């Protein structure tokens, strides 16, 4: 499965995605660095897909058990990460529309 062409493909993807990451993140306003980190955290929890396959395929009880804990850990990051990012971003308001009386 891990042929050398797969490896080269994977390296290409990794390096290119890293570049996109650097360029995109550099443009993020410093205002939003905290929500940025909680958002990337939630996105990173996409690792849950690997854990889901481990649990679902149930190839051994060890792999299913480790996968099960991994699913819980990653899911808590997805749910918590998106929730807190949303809460934070809702708080950012501009002074332009209406100044408080």
């Amino acid at each position, binding site marked *: 499965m891990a042929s050398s062409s797969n490896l080269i493909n994977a390296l290409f993807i990794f390096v290119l995605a890293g570049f996109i990451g650097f360029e995109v993140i550099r443009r993020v306003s410093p205002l939003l660095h905290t929500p*940025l*980190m909680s958002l990337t955290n939630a996105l990173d929890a996409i690792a849950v*897909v690997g854990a*889901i396959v481990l649990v679902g395929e*149930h190839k051994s009880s060890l792999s299913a058990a480790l*996968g099960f804990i991994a699913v819980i*850990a990653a899911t808590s*990051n997805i749910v918590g*990460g998106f929730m807190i990012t949303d809460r934070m971003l809702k708080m950012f308001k501009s002074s332009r529309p209406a100044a408080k009386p």
Partner: protein
Amino acid sequence: MTAELAGNQVFIEILYLVASVLFILSLKWMSSPTTARHGIWAGEIGMLLAICGTLLHHGIIDYRLIAIGLVLGTIIGVPLGRVAMTAVPQRTALSHTFGALCVTLVGSAEFYLRSPDISPFMMAVLSIEVILGGLTVTGSLMAAGKLQEILPQRPLTYKGQNFVNFLLLAVAIGIAVFLVLHPGARNLFPFMILIALAFGVLLIIPIGGADMPTVISLLNSYAGLSAAAMGFVLNSKLLIIAGALDGSSGMVLSIIMSKAMNRSFTNVLFGAFGQVQASAAGAQEERPVRRATAEEAAAILSAANKVIVVPGYGMAVAQAQHKVRELYDSLTKRGVEVRFAIHPVAGRMPGHMNVLLAEADIPYDRLIEMDEINGDFPQTDVALVIGANDVTNPAARTDASSPIYGMPILDVDKAHTVMVIKRSMNPGFAGIENPLYYLDNTLMLFGDAKAFVGSIVRELGGAHG
């Protein structure tokens, strides 16, 4: 090669591709507060597509256990999404722990499923995955403990600390190399993980509270890179992309944070900042300072045209941000231009101060970053420093012997009048004497930040009505 993929498999890969694009858009939209919430939706939709796609995977036979895991994860995740804004740094550190835990567990499971039939390259990546993952699990847990103040914030150092750390890392890498050559050595694998876990603890022990913004960013990067390594192991392009995005995001933030503290990565990890300064703070002399009352402060503020507030973490500790908002409202109503100067390391993680002020309903276009506002201090009537210390220390510009010499600071001393709200003359978090307090244009307002700002607001209201 692609011809071998079943139709179902092609569909799943396309869902993953769409998810990858949505993830990149999600980060792109974070560039401005006006589009940022689209970013969350893009991320959520991408995540949903990816998970649904994975559930279609033909090898999956047991859906019950997956469902239980998803539900339990949600039950843990919801309270973590509802913590107070002051607790966001430790929540973030904890979520790095969870992310890395997932990666480490999946890596371990893959090892035992495949061993001894693992190619050298695959074993090398798997080792990187579990070593980076393992040290992030315990390292982030330690960071969360320090931020939550369960663990002591000051750096714990001992002689030969760096040597011990390097030795541990070397042993872990040694085991990894052995496993690359002999992937059937199943008994050695747990030792590699145990050493990585121990290394994570020892790595964070010598790091002081003031360096937490850099450390959190660095651990964020490690969590991302370990996930990318997991993507190599599972041959999942989506995971490689998400991991690379997270890894580079953490790296960019670490670089910004280190620059803001004028430190190199190696210095943060191996320096134990607090130690150096304790000795530097030794030589102190009693010097006169000028004091002012809330009444005097209110009179000066109301006569000003331009005011810049410099908030520090001390303001958040005193829970003064809502009183500061009242002050902002009151002065703005009188036609005073009030802005907030945000140092990159104000607060306990990158951008933390902005969130704390936004929570208090201060509009985000009033929050100005350091490089943008520093040129305006000479034309500013009053700089009001609340709970900030080292980031206003002019010694960073002038005194080559100061431990913070070279660190970029907010040039508050150039304002016509500087007012500093402070409990006492004790040196701050890092223990460095601040010459700002003895300048002729500086007025010291001694007291609790919340109470003092509250009485200024009352004085302003009284003078008005």
